[in-house]
């Protein structure tokens, strides 16, 4: 092997290494970005679904008895196999109402909570809705 041949051989190895490194980094960045976006879309879609089905509102108070009836009539959003919703007063861990829909949880669970007004005894009081949903 002459001098030029050795240099060319090293160059080609280096070029392959650079391409592999760049591809790996690119794929990692792409994958992490995709995961974050998916999680956000799921939560936003779920909130829209809850709002559309009268289970959550940012503006008006939700009556708990009506929520239970509405959930019984609701079908889960696409791609979600099960969901649990708990309503409770702000600062009080004891739930006022717990609702379950679909199958039991398997694998990753998306969990979040949102403040909302809950109608309790004819009065609108600050409360929290806790949602857990899974695929």
């Amino acid at each position, binding site marked *: 092997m002459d*001098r*030029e041949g*050795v*240099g*060319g051989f*090293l*160059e080609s190895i*280096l*070029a392959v*290494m*650079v391409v592999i*490194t*760049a591809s790996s*980094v690119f794929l*990692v*960045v792409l994958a*992490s*970005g995709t995961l*974050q976006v998916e999680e*956000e879309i799921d939560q936003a879609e779920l909130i829209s679904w809850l709002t559309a089905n009268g289970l959550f509102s*940012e503006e008006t108070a939700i009556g708990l008895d009506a929520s239970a009836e509405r959930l019984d009539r609701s079908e889960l959003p696409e791609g979600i196999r099960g969901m649990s919703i708990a309503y409770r*007063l*702000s*600062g*009080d861990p004891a739930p006022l109402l717990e609702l379950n829909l679909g199958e039991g949880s398997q694998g990753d669970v998306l969990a979040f909570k*949102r*403040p*909302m*007004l809950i109608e309790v005894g*004819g*009065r*609108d*009081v*600050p*409360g*929290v809705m806790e949602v857990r949903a899974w695929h």
Partner: protein
Amino acid sequence: MALRKDRHGMAMVVDALIFLVVLTLLVAILHIAPYHEDEDRMELLRSYHAVMLSGELPGEDGSSLSSATLSDYLIALSLNGTPSQEQVLLIERMVNGTIVELGTGQSGAWLVIELGATELRFGSEPPEGGEVYADRRELGDGSVVSTLFLA
């Protein structure tokens, strides 16, 4: 000896290193970027504050307070000068749950209500360091200012 004289190969090495440095910096910037976290916390703080101010007072049926919100009550109090101890306790009952809820798992949460010249404080003591988020709302004609803090 072969490498020392192979200038084309060395140039390639330098190019590759520059490429990797730029790529590393790009990845670092993408990962260090806050990615909506601050916006999410502010949005949550705004939601808690809005819900808290819209909560209705525990007035008995038929009384003038039975359907008044905390916001209405604070505006009414601002017209009457300094609130009494009983009125402050009622406000505390109305806001305590939200402050506890918001402060759970955080460094602290507290509320400052300015009623004209009177300032009412509820919740935890502000921490000495760290980031603090705040949502400030002027109620009525601006005589009442409610600011909810989260650290």
